[in-house]
């Protein structure tokens, strides 16, 4: 399964043969797993830097560039966007409305679809003071959270960012002892309580399987 991060797709003559998932870099590993267990290895993934987690205004232009490149490429019969709204305030939906048949993942952010959109909604304001981590964010905690928020250079900013949070909730996909220990350490570093919720792939798996299998769009010949 090919994962690429550039929008410079080489043109390829002939009929559209496969599908493309334009994905947040934070989801690539999990998407690869879902595709792999379903025998959908021919589907390509175009990764957008996960660092945009902290700069959501960059997400829509990046997704648009990938969609345009993929349409020029003509190899892709179906394009799917593996993002929730992710802080774009509806801009991602406005972009996708311009393209026929390009869908995205459900919900407001990855914490929602990993938890299951319905389960997340049921919690209401119960998670208002929770700071979420996923497997990816636990692995990349230092680069995305600590460095991304400038806490490596200015640790005194921690309480400004996290003053109103009460706990770190680790929404684990495939938890290991190492990840659990890292997640715990992350909570400690942020001065927050810790909770582990083993949610697996949640609606990410269901949704990808629905799009690429149940809807009959699996075009692997």
């Amino acid at each position, binding site marked *: 399964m090919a994962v690429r991060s550039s929008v410079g797709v080489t043109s390829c003559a002939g009929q559209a043969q496969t599908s493309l998932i334009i994905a947040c870099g934070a989801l690539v590993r999990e998407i690869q797993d879902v595709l792999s267990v379903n025998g959908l290895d021919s589907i390509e993934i175009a990764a957008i830097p996960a660092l945009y987690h902290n700069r*959501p*205004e960059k997400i829509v232009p990046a997704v648009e560039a990938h969609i345009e490149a993929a349409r020029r490429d003509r190899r892709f019969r179906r394009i799917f966007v593996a993002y929730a*709204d992710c*802080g*774009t*305030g*509806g*801009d991602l939906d406005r972009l996708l409305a311009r393209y026929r048949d390009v869908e995205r993942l459900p919900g*407001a*952010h990855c914490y929602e679809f990993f938890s299951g959109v319905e389960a997340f909604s049921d919690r209401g*304001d119960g998670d*208002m*003071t929770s700071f979420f981590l996923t497997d990816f964010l636990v692995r990349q905690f230092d680069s995305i959270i600590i460095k991304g*928020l*400038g*806490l490596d*250079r*200015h640790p005194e*900013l921690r309480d*400004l*960012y996290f003053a*109103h*949070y009460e706990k770190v909730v680790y929404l684990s996909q495939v938890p290991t002892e190492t990840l659990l220990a890292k997640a715990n350490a992350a909570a400690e570093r942020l001065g927050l309580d810790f909770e582990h919720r083993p949610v697996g792939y949640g609606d990410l798996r269901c949704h990808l399987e629905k799009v690429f299998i149940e809807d009959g769009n699996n075009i692997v010949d």
Partner: protein
Amino acid sequence: MADEEDDIILSELSDDELVEQMHQDLYDGLKEEIQEGVTILLERGWAPYDVLTKALVEGMHVVGIDFRDGILFVPEVLLAANAMKTGMAILRPLLADSDAPPQGRIVMGTVKGDIHDIGKNLVGMMMEGAGFEVVDLGINTDVDEFLAAIDEHKPDMIGMSALLTTTMPYMKVVIDTLKEKGIRDDLVVLVGGAPLNEDFANAVGADAYCRDAAVAVEKAKELMARRHNQMAGA
């Protein structure tokens, strides 16, 4: 030796040089230097309002522009804001007794379900710096809290902030309630927050979308001036 030569003695600078240096110190988030600079200007007989506007607000204006242009990022803006806050702490009691021109009163809060207040606090500080009286309701503010504060403080404006896509629709709940109560037109409504945009602000019925703290101040001044003109013409 080089360090000694590079050290700048703030008290030895002329007024203009000191103000320029304070802009730089704000940019670099240097709290102690800002505190010292404010104290020196006051000792030299500067009016508190002039120290605020010329040294602090003007300095933060540059920070705001560089943030908008992607030169500075959130951590640097927070450090600058913290430095400004130390200056404000000295000036606030003096400003209360001064003849600084009143701009209006704003009740502001992060909406229900949302605990993010970094942007709101920055707006509050810049509003205060621009001469507005700020009543900050904090985080997770529901419509009843907004209504109670409007009743108590009789503001000219309300400001609502949200960081989450899931919480920003609550702004419409507040605005619709103001309409139901028949007080919407008595107030200027400003909204802001990372996932918002102009279209959203229009859709929920706000008067202005404030992309950042500097824009919030500009919009507030502009809308207040328009309101005064309308009232004068009525």
